């Protein structure tokens, strides 16, 4: 028996660890460093109907134990992603979770319908939480009704299960989670970045050209844990958790509050080998804590 195996809608994961969207491109760069088949899954960069060039630079800024980014969903567009990136990824034995983004409901529907037909795309991740674009993105993720409607629209066209990626930039994240569950979501991924700012103290100017950016990295872990803990109580669909995961203890904490699997974002920039390292460390950690399988650990904080 594989102690690390995790079954989720559409996803038969050999282990519960995967790179988070936007922090791993479409895998090509990391494939030069290690075998991508080691990963539980890969969440690819947000894909929009057309090519998107993103925001002006500087797009990133370092902050205490974290970073801000305002990439602006830059990506080659649906056709190129399907033809160049997804077909290339087929050589690896790893399920792909396609991150879907857009300005309008139609954009989401267009991308979801097409990309869900790619043979290696086993699930979609609806990005209704990108804080770095003027239209679309987060506006879909902060209003429960709009979130529910969008989920429904995408569910109607998708050939694979649909996960919705929640924004932490809301007052009651549980309410949004319930709304997307009602809309038919098969799962939830959370959290996206927290809106933030950094200034050049001497001039008073924002460091990021977009003025604001999304905060990620170890600094946001407490927020992510709290939100997953909340959402796990309120919905019955599974959660893929993320937000600051860097060490094996972080992985354990996310599983404990109710995530069934986890994604690693910013930590890939610090240590490009972090995902395979965590996968390797997980069995020993389970032993140390006295758990047979990953599944036994999921949600244990709620049972205490």
């Amino acid at each position, binding site marked *: 028996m594989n102690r690390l195996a995790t079954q989720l809608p559409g996803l038969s994961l050999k282990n519960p660890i995967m790179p988070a969207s936007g*922090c791993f491109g479409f895998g090509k760069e990391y494939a030069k460093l290690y075998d991508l088949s080691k990963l539980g899954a890969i969440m690819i960069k947000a894909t929009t109907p057309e090519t998107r060039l993103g925001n002006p630079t500087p797009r990133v800024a370092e902050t205490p134990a974290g970073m801000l980014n305002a990439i602006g969903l830059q990506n080659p567009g649906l056709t190129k992603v399907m033809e160049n990136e997804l077909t290339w990824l087929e050589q690896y034995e790893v399920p792909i979770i396609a991150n879907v983004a857009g300005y309008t409901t139609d954009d989401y529907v267009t991308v979801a319908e097409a990309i869900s037909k790619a043979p290696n795309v086993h699930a979609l991740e609806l990005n209704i939480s990108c804080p770095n674009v003027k239209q679309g993105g987060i506006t879909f993720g902060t209003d429960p009704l709009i979130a529910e409607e969008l989920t429904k629209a995408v569910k109607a066209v998708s050939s694979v299960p649909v996960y919705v990626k929640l924004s932490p930039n809301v007052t009651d994240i549980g309410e949004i989670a319930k709304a997307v569950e009602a809309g038919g979501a098969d799962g939830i991924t959370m959290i996206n970045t927290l809106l933030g700012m950094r200034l050049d103290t001497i001039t008073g100017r924002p460091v990021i050209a977009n003025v604001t950016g999304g905060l990620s990295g170890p600094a946001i872990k407490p927020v992510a844990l709290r939100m997953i803990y909340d959402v796990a109580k309120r919905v019955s669909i599974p959660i893929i958790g993320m937000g600051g995961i860097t060490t094996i203890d972080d992985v354990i904490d996310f599983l404990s509050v109710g995530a069934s699997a986890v994604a690693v974002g910013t930590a890939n*920039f610090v240590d*490009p080998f972090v995902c395979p390292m965590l996968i390797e460390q997980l069995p020993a950690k389970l032993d140390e804590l006295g758990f047979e399988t990953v599944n036994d650990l999921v949600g244990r904080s709620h049972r205490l």
Partner: protein
Amino acid sequence: MIRQEQMEVVHQRSIATNIFELTLTGPLVLDMKQPGQFVHLRVSDQMEPLLRRPISISTINKETLEFTMIYRADGRGTALLSEKKQGDQVDVLGPLGNGFPIDKIEAGQKALLVGGGIGVPPLYELSKRLVEKGVQPIHVLGFQSESVVFYEKQFIELGDTHIVTADGSYGSAGFVTNVLETLQDDFAVYYSCGPTPMLAALEKMYPEKEGYLSFEQRMGCGIGACFACVCDTTEKIDADYVKVCSDGPVFPSGVVQV
């Protein structure tokens, strides 16, 4: 091949005000190909400062498995780096990016090398390679003031060297362009690394010449995955954008919109 390696500090010394020369050793050096490539360094094993720092490779010695960087201790990360002592380990990701091509110029020809401030270091390995090839380098190196001038002697040993300081405290006064105006343009290729306005001025000055320019951008991953470091391109090329970390940092003149 890109590797992540714990490399050992061979020595570190201050060579000008806040300017440090740091030599590391390890097998990763064997993978370094071109002058102008860079490494992405972790300056601490703590979560603060979190991100790696991109620093150019300044000298490569494959026999001793050593390479040298020259950097300005500016903010928190480089200040921490400057505290590393002989025997300490540094986490290095590299070699990264594409450097200056030396196959674009023939023995007997002249090359113009223009550096500004902390853009000077990668030109040192470049100049050495060019000299080995029989190319004659002309160095024009700009600094803020006398206190931050470095490697003048090393560059003089390789060829004609002009130092210029913005405040006139050393060499000639002004910008590198002031010196360039007084030089003959009988060089075959120009190479440059420094602030973007300087690179822009060079492109304008030598529209007909073949040139290679090294750019800087804020980075996340350093390997081409995060889209942090993109630059807009000119109409001359097909791509809408380039990534400094993996397509560059060195680009032929006319590719990046300056």
